């Protein structure tokens, strides 16, 4: 047998592997407008850059070897925007991309390479869970599961991004929750186990959308960062996320020169923020006006909406914006907002991305509901994380800034430098409440009971809350006009560059639990 025969066999086997779960299954997906695993990889990776790992792998069970190409999970190395990355795409047409002995070895190999060599890792998820019968019984469990002491350990050596692109139960759910960024195609489902199993277990018919559909994760769980309509948009989101990230934790994020016209929007920024302190506005527009043009990548937009967390660039450098959004609950932060901000600080701190705080809030949400949601613990978790951050932190006080939230939002020495707009006002509590606490009795509302006293006391307190006292005691280092915000940030990002370590932080938050 010469090479010719060997080559023929190679080609035949290759063709069989590339045929995945067969024409009928692939056609069904195509007709539904859903990409298959190989099409997804093609769309994700730079042309011709995919080097597959385990093309000829199959199920370890003898009876399954002939119809399990790739054992249902495709993986390997490829370039994304010119940078090497590790990729895993679940092939749902092969045994529902369920987890079994061979593909577990493949995933472990990918995870090890990404972690030890400092490569971003991308998961294109769609899986039915552990394969049955492979994982059944003591032998199945003992042989297949729990054999790695590091499988679920995240020290964030390199960024992980996940896309939820179909039914995700078991492994694809776990890897999504372990990732630094997750995007979901609407119509996909992410849950611990399938609606069929859940319905059997609790004896009640459940549909996938209520169990783990996009609205569940957008509004209630916050486990997913972005939601899109198509597979292509999901993969675009993964690429956009990685464009803000370094390849690994010991590298600075890549520079992307600011597009022309990036200095224009900030000139009209004062028009976005009403001077009247009783009127609200959309902080997202303020962040966008300051950031480089078309560089605004918001995470968890419908979860904890009183705060905005967005990756962005200013003067070509990656930054993470943490901002109050007065449009929702006047910008008063609740438990969800705290969780969202903490997970965002962990992300930015792990990958050397400076943090920028935009502050306008009346304090934290208070009341029985807030306490039930563990507000005190959440506020202090926020502080624990904030004081572990070692990337540069910069604060811009825009309007209201009250109480403990002043400290949480990078007030005082919780940021490297702090500036305030001329419109900023700072105090321990809102002046209207302060007047009542100082001058009124319990149950009395001075606004109604003694309007003259209220007015005089209110005006005095309001005056003391102005930015000038804060500037006088050097609690803010600069007072600026709104139009100067972008210039101030660009300059301060230069001043506070971590020169001594080449832009690399200490990553004290890198072992913070994922999907916290």
């Amino acid at each position, binding site marked *: 047998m010469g090479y010719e025969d060997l080559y023929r066999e190679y080609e035949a086997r290759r063709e069989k592997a590339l045929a995945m779960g067969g024409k009928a299954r692939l056609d069904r997906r195509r007709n539904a407008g859903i990409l298959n695993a190989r099409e997804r990889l093609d769309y994700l990776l730079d042309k011709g850059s995919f080097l597959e790992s385990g093309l000829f792998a199959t199920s370890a069970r003898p009876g399954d070897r002939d119809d399990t190409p790739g054992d249902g999970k495709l993986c390997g190395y490829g370039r994304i925007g010119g940078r090497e990355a590790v990729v895993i795409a679940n092939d749902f047409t092969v045994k529902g991309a369920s987890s079994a002995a061979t593909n577990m070895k493949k995933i472990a190999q990918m995870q090890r390479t990404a972690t030890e060599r400092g490569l971003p890792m991308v998961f294109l998820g769609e899986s039915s869970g552990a394969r049955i019968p492979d994982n059944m019984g003591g032998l199945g469990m003992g042989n297949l599961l729990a054999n790695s002491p590091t499988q679920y350990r995240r020290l964030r050596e390199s960024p992980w991004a996940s896309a939820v692109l179909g039914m995700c139960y078991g492994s694809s759910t776990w890897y999504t929750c372990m990732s630094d960024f997750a995007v979901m195609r609407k119509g996909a489902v992410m849950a611990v186990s399938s609606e069929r199993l859940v319905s059997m277990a609790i004896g009640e018919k459940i549909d996938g959308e209520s169990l783990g559909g996009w609205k569940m994760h957008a*509004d209630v769980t916050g486990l997913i960062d972005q939601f899109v309509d198509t597979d292509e948009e999901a993969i675009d989101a993964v690429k956009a996320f990685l464009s803000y990230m370094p390849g690994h934790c010991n590298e600075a994020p890549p520079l992307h020169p600011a597009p022309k016209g990036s200095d224009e929007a900030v000139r009209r920024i004062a028009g976005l923020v009403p001077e009247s302190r*009783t*009127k*609200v506005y959309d902080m997202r527009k303020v962040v966008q006006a300051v950031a480089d043009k078309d560089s605004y990548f918001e995470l968890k937009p*419908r979860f904890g909406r009183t705060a905005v967390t967005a990756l962005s660039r200013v003067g070509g450098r990656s930054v993470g914006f943490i901002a109050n959004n*007065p*449009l*929702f*609950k*006047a910008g*008063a932060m609740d438990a969800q907002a705290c969780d969202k901000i903490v997970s965002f600080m962990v992300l930015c701190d792990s990958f050397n991305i400076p943090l920028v705080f935009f502050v306008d809030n*009346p304090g934290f949400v208070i009341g029985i*509901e807030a306490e039930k949601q563990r507000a005190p613990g959440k506020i202090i978790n926020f502080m624990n994380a904030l004081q572990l951050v070692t990337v540069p932190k910069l604060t811009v006080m825009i309007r209201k800034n009250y109480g403990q939230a002043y400290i949480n939002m990078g007030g005082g020495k919780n940021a490297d430098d702090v500036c305030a707009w001329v419109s900023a006002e700072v105090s321990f509590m*809102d002046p*209207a409440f302060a007047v009542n606490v100082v001058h009124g009795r319990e149950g009395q509302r001075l606004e109604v009971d003694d309007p003259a006293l209220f007015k005089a006391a209110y005006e005095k307190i309001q005056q003391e809350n102005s930015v000038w006292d804060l500037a006088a005691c050097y609690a803010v280092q600069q007072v600026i006009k709104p139009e100067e915000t972008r210039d101030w940030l660009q300059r301060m990002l230069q001043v506070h560059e971590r020169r001594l370590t080449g832009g690399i932080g200490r990553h004290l938050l890198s072992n913070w639990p994922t999907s916290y």
Partner: protein
Amino acid sequence: MAREEIQSEVTGTVWKIEMKVGDAISDGDTIMILESMKMEIPVISTEDGKLVEILVKEEQPVSEGQAVAVVETA
């Protein structure tokens, strides 16, 4: 097509109703403005579709989580 309730995020008083039943509505549109915490707080649609019901009147007190309008999604 589904009916989605729009809830108030805060406890306060209805100050001004900005839209009327039958109006086309998009995610982000302001349906009404409440007075709460001495601020004008908008109630904002989280859905695209048609505004089919307004469940409160001006000057009526509302509590956090209370349904104040219904949107029929496209």
